[in-house]
C-alpha cells in the first residue's frame, strides 16, 4: 500500500494529494501542468512537499511532522523519467547495472530477458532507438529492486507501433514482479489499456478517480 498524503506548494502552484494506492498499476492522468511529474518527484525524494506524509507499506519516506525526509538514494523508488535519462557516457550494460542492489532477487539475466534488452548490452546509448532506451531505462530501474516504480509518460517519445510493443513489458513488470507502478500519462487510450486505477489530476488536485474504468471524469 502506498500512502500519498501531502501538500506541495511552489509559487502559485499547489499540489494536494490524499490517496492510498494498492499494488498494480495506478495511472496519474491529467493535462500538462496538473502536477503529475511533481507528484512523482515528491515520491522519489527529488522535491520536498510542504507538509504531509509519504509511505510505502510501513516504510515512511517523508513525514513533515516527525521531521522524516529520506534522501532519494535511500528511498528504493525506481524512477523512469520522461526523458529516460540513460547515462550517455556509459554503455547499456553499465547503465543497467548502475543501481544494482546487492542481494536482490532479480538477476541481470532475468531482467534483460524479460525486457529483451540482452542483445544490446554492449551498445552505446546514442545508438539506441527511443523504444530501446525506454526498455533499458526500465531494466535499469528494476535492477535497483525498487519497492515502487514510477514511470513518467514512458511512451510519449515512441510512435504508435513501438507503443504497442512496449505495453506488454509494463504489464510483465506488474504481473511477473508484483512491483506497484505509478504511471503518468495524458493519453486516455494508454491509461485505459494499462491502469488498474486512475487518479485524474487537474490543477494540482485529484479531480476524480476510478477503479478499472476511468470513465469520462475530468478529461
Amino acid at each position, binding site marked *: 500500500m502506498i500512502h500519498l498524503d501531502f501538500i506541495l506548494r511552489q509559487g502559485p502552484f499547489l499540489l494536494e494529494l490524499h490517496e492510498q494506492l494498492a499494488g498494480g498499476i495506478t495511472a496519474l492522468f491529467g493535462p500538462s501542468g496538473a502536477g503529475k511529474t511533481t507528484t512523482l518527484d515528491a515520491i522519489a525524494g*527529488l522535491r520536498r512537499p510542504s507538509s504531509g506524509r509519504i509511505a510505502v507499506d510501513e516504510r515512511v519516506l517523508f513525514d513533515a511532522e516527525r521531521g522524516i525526509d529520506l534522501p532519494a538514494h535511500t*528511498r528504493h*523508488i525506481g524512477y523512469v523519467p520522461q526523458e529516460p*535519462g540513460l547515462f550517455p*557516457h556509459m554503455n547499456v550494460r553499465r547503465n543497467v547495472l*548502475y543501481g544494482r*542492489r546487492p542481494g536482490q532477487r532479480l538477476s541481470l539475466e532475468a531482467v534483460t530477458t524479460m525486457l529483451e534488452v540482452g542483445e544490446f548490452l554492449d551498445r552505446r546509448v546514442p545508438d539506441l532507438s527511443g523504444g530501446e532506451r525506454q526498455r533499458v531505462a526500465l531494466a535499469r530501474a528494476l535492477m*535497483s529492486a525498487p519497492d515502487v516504480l514510477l514511470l513518467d509518460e514512458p511512451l510519449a517519445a515512441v510512435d504508435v507501433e513501438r507503443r504497442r510493443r512496449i505495453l506488454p513489458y509494463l504489464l510483465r513488470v506488474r504481473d511477473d514482479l508484483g512491483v506497484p507502478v505509478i504511471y503518468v500519462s495524458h493519453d486516455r487510450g494508454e491509461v485505459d489499456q494499462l491502469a488498474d486505477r486512475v487518479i485524474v489530476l487537474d490543477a494540482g488536485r485529484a479531480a476524480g478517480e476510478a477503479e478499472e474504468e476511468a470513465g469520462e471524469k475530468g478529461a
Partner: protein
Amino acid sequence: MGELWTITLLTVGMAAIATLIMLPPGLLLAWALARGRFRGRVLLETLVSLPLVMPPVATGLILLMLLAPRGVLGGVLANLGIEIVFTWKAVVIAMAVMGLPLLVRTARAGFEQVDRRYEQVASTLGANPLRVFLTVTLPLALPSVMAAAVLCFARAIGEFGATMMIAGSIPGSTRTLAVAIYSFAETGRDTQAAQLVLVSAAIAFAALALSNWIAARSGLRT
C-alpha cells in the same frame, strides 16, 4: 641556455603542482557553487573570485602577512619547522591562489551544464551524492574540468605579482618565467628576457590550443 632551461622547467613543474593541488578542492568548490543551496554561497563565490579582480600584489601581501614566520599561519608552520616564504612552496601557493578562480569558475560552468535529470536518476538508483558526483557529474563535465585545469595551469605559469611578494626572485628556486623576465629586463639582460618571452608565449599558445581542442571535441560529442 642552461639558466633559461632551469627557469622554464621550474615554472612548468611548480605550475603543474599548483594545479594538481588545487584540483580536488577547486572541483569540490565548483560543485558546491553549482549545485549546493546553502547560506553564504554568494559570499563564498565572491571570496573565490577575489584574486581574479584584486591587484595580484595585494593578494601577495595578504599571503605574506598570513604566511610570514610572524604571520597567523606562518607562526604555526614555523613551530613545525616548515618554512614557506621565499621558498619554492611560496611560489606554488601564489600560483595556486591566483589560479583557483579560473579553475572554479570554468569547472562550475561545466557542472551547471550537466542535466540535473541524470544526477536525479542516479540518486533514485541508490547513489549517494559523492557517487553521483564521481560517476555522473564529473565524467559528463570532463571537458570543462580539463579546460579548467588548463586555464589554472596557464594562469599559474604567468603568475607574477603575488609571487614577487612572497617568493621573491631567487635563481634556481623561486625565479619563475614571469619573475625572470622582469629581473632580466631590469638588469639589462634583454636577450635572455626576449628568449623567455618566446618560451612563455609558446607555453601559453600550447595551453590555449589544448583548451580549445578539448572544447571543440566536447562540442562534437554532444
